[in-house]
């Protein structure tokens, strides 16, 4: 294989279809979640350490900045999980055609947006 074959992956010159947009966001959300895992572990640690720590956590969760960080992690988790379920359904042969893939991407995006809003309602 020639290693100097021409490649065009300049995103700014390519019109991304919906399937590509949900795919790149799935990647980005995955990278973000690896860092977000620290937030989830911190929540678990603070909630289980002691009764005082549990109550202190409830108080810190009323701070707007902490609410936003927790919501951002939950929103990313919701998006990544919904797109993951889409992958599993496609592995089972559902929505594998071009049209099916596009419809699946829109449906998954709609479900993710609803869950992200619900996560916001839950946190606030």
């Amino acid at each position, binding site marked *: 294989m020639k290693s100097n074959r021409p*490649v065009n992956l300049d995103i700014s010159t390519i019109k991304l279809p919906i399937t590509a947009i949900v795919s790149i966001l799935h*990647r980005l959300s*995955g*990278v973000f*979640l*690896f860092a977000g*895992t*620290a937030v989830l*572990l911190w929540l*678990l*640690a603070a*909630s*289980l*350490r*002691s*009764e005082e720590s*549990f*109550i202190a956590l409830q108080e810190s969760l009323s701070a707007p900045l902490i609410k936003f960080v927790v919501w951002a992690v939950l929103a990313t*988790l919701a998006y990544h*999980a919904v797109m*993951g*379920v889409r*992958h*599993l359904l496609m*592995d089972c042969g559902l929505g594998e055609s071009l049209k099916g893939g596009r419809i699946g991407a829109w449906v998954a995006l709609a479900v993710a947006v609803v869950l992200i809003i619900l996560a916001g309602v*839950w946190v606030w």
Partner: protein
Amino acid sequence: MVTAVTSFGRSGLYDWLVQRVSAVAMAAYTLFIVFYLLLNPGMEYAQWQTLFSQLWVRIFTLITLVSVIAHAWIGLWAVLTDYLTERMMGSKAVVLRLIAQVILAVVAVTYAVWGIEIIWGI
């Protein structure tokens, strides 16, 4: 450039399967925790602590933690081998990627030890 040497299972098919099995485990755990919290509003510490002192909850948590690490390694390997390449980063790409993967490994081990401390320290 050979990239498989730093993949999770040294086999694309194996990584593909681990990615899906770990995803199902994490999804099940997420639903379990979210619904437990939704169904128990205004929960006290004692109830939460009792939940996590049960062996099956600790095992479920540990399985999820191991799944996070395997899943993240496979996913981030795919991202790093796509972007930290010689075409995009020049001749230092492999060194950059190995440094990034060592950092990821350190974070993954930290998460594992931290998580075990949390669930077995209560």
